[in-house]
C-alpha cells in the first residue's frame, strides 16, 4: 500500500500540470469575479436567482471538467510512453516495484486522482467566486449564490460524476494505456488510427457500422447511461425578461441514476473490456523497456 502512495506522489512530481492547470483556471475565474460585471439584470424572483446560480455553478464545474477530460486523456496516453522515451523506465525498473503496481497507480491517477484535484479546485474557486460576487453585487443575485442545498447537490453530482466516468471510460483508459505501453512513436496517431481503420474496414467490406456505433455509444453515451435525462417532469424552465430562459433540472437527486447505471450490462461489459486492456498494458510493460 505504501508503495502505491509513493507511486501516486511520483506522478504528481512528474506531472505538475495536474494541479497547476486547475489552479490557473481557478485563478482566472476568481479574477473574472473580482473584476468582471457581476450584476445580472432582470432577475427578480427567488426561482430565477436559484436557477441562475445553479447554472453558474454547473458552468464553472463544466469548465474544470472539460479541461480535466482533455488533460486526463493526454496523461493516460503519455504515462507509459514518456519514461520509455527518456529511458528512465530503466531506473524505475531497478526498484522493487512491480509493473502491475506501476500501471495500476497510473490508472488511478488518470481516472480518480486527477478528477479529484480538479473537483477540489472547482469547489474552492466557486466558493471564492460566490463570496466575491455576494460582496460586490448590488442586486439580489449576490445573496442568491449562497444556496446550501444547491451546494450539497453539486457536491453529490461531482462525486457521482468522478466515480461513474471512471467506470464508464475504463475501456477508453485501458486502450490509451495499451497504446502508451506499446507505441514506439506517435502515440496520438496509434490511438486513433486502429479504431478508425476498423470502422472504415467494416464499412467497406461488410457495409455495416457496428464498430462505429459501439465507439460512439461509449464516447458520447455517458450522459444517457449515468443520468436520467428523459424524465420531462424533472426539467424546470425559468424565463427572464422577454425571451431569455434557462432550463435546468429541478433537483440533482432526480438526475442521477446510480442504480440504473451500475446494473446496466453495458457498464460492466465496459469494465471487463477495460480490465482486459489494462492487463494487456501490464504485459507490455513487463516486456517493453525501450522504444
Amino acid at each position, binding site marked *: 500500500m505504501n508503495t502505491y502512495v509513493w*507511486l501516486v506522489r511520483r506522478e504528481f*512530481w512528474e506531472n505538475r500540470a495536474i494541479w497547476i492547470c486547475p489552479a490557473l483556471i481557478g485563478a482566472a475565474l476568481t479574477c473574472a469575479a473580482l473584476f468582471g460585471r457581476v450584476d445580472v439584470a432582470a432577475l427578480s424572483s427567488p426561482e430565477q436567482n436559484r436557477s441562475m446560480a445553479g447554472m453558474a455553478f454547473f458552468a464553472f464545474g463544466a469548465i474544470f471538467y472539460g479541461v480535466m477530460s482533455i488533460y486526463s486523456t493526454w496523461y493516460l496516453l503519455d504515462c507509459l510512453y514518456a519514461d520509455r522515451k*527518456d529511458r*528512465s523506465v*530503466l531506473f524505475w*525498473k*531497478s526498484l*522493487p516495484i*512491480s*509493473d502491475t503496481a506501476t500501471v495500476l497507480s497510473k490508472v488511478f491517477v488518470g481516472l480518480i486522482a486527477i478528477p479529484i484535484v480538479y473537483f477540489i479546485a472547482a469547489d474552492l474557486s466557486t466558493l471564492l467566486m460566490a463570496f466575491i460576487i455576494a460582496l460586490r453585487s448590488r442586486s439580489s443575485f449576490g445573496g442568491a449564490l449562497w444556496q446550501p442545498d444547491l451546494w450539497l447537490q453539486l457536491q453529490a453530482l461531482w462525486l457521482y460524476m468522478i466515480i461513474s466516468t471512471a467506470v464508464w471510460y475504463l475501456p477508453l483508459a485501458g486502450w490509451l494505456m495499451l497504446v502508451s505501453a506499446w507505441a514506439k512513436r506517435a502515440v496520438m496517431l496509434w490511438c486513433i488510427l486502429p479504431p478508425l481503420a476498423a470502422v472504415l474496414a467494416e464499412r467497406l467490406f461488410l457495409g455495416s457500422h457496428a464498430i462505429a456505433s459501439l465507439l460512439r455509444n461509449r464516447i458520447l453515451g455517458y450522459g444517457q447511461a449515468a443520468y436520467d435525462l428523459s424524465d420531462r417532469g424533472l426539467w424546470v424552465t425559468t424565463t427572464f425578461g422577454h425571451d431569455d430562459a434557462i432550463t435546468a433540472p429541478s433537483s440533482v437527486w432526480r438526475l442521477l441514476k446510480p442504480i440504473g447505471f451500475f446494473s446496466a450490462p453495458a457498464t460492466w461489459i465496459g469494465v471487463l473490456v477495460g480490465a482486459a486492456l489494462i492487463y494487456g498494458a501490464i504485459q507490455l510493460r513487463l516486456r517493453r523497456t525501450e522504444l
Partner: protein
Amino acid sequence: MSPGMPPIIQARDLSKKYGSNIALDHVNFAVEAGRIVGLIGPNGAGKTSALRAILGLTAYEGELQVLGREPFADRAALMNEATFIADVAVLPPWLRVDQAIEFVAGVHPRFRRDRAQAFLAKTQITGQRRIRELSKGMKTLVHLALTMAIDARLLVLDEPTLGLDILARRAFYDALVNDYMDATRTILITTHQVEEVENLLTDVLFIDKGRIVLDSSLEDIATRYAAVAVAEDKVAAARAEHPFFERPMLGKKVLYFERPDVGKLANFGEVVTPSVADLFVAKLS
C-alpha cells in the same frame, strides 16, 4: 565462500531470440558471491540480452536463477536484493535530487538515506537541483549515490560510464571500489573500456555471437594463457608450439598460447600474462 552455497546467478541453457535473430544461444554460466565479473563482448554479442534477462527486463528460454529467483517472473522481489545501473543518464529529467532520495527511501526496504546523502555531500550536487540541470557526470554520480545506498547483494552495471570524460569515469570506479565493494556483494559489469575495469575484476565472461567463449577467473587466466613477443627469426619455431593467435608489434610478433609449456616459450622471448583486453582480441579474432 563456503561450498554448497548456491551461486548468485546460475544460467543453464539460457536462450533469447528476437525473431530469427539469436541473441543468446543455449548459454551456461554461474556467478559466485563476492566476485566482480566483467561480461565482455563486441556489439551485438548478446551482452545486453544476457543482462536484460538477469534483471528480469525480458522474457527468455531456458533456466535462469538470480539470488534464487526467476528474474522475469519475480523482478519486483528480486530488486529488493539486486539493483542495476543500465546505461548513463536514465534518471528521469524532471526529478529533483532530494525527491529521488525520498522516493527510493519510500519504496526500497534496503535503502539507507544517510549513506546517499553522505555520498552526495562530497559532491557539488544539491538536493534542489533537477536531474535535467546536471551534467552527464553529475547524473551518473547521483545514480551511483542512490545505487550504493542500497544494501544489495547483486549490482549490475551496464556501460555505466559510457560517454563520460576520464575524470568522471575515474570518480565512478573509485567510489565503487572504495565505498561499496565488500565480500557480501557481487558485481556484474559490462563495458567497452575493458582496460579501465581490468584491475577491478576477479572474473571475466567473454561472449560472442550469443555464446560464452571464455569463463575464467583472472588467476586462472594467469596460469592458462601466455603471450610472448617473438623476434622474426624465431617465429617459425615458436609457431610449432601452437599459438591460437598472433599479431604484429614493432617488428616482432606477439604469439598467444593456451596451456603452454612455459619452459619452452621462454626460449623465444619474455613470457607474460596477456591483459584482459589483449586476450579478448586474441580470443575473438
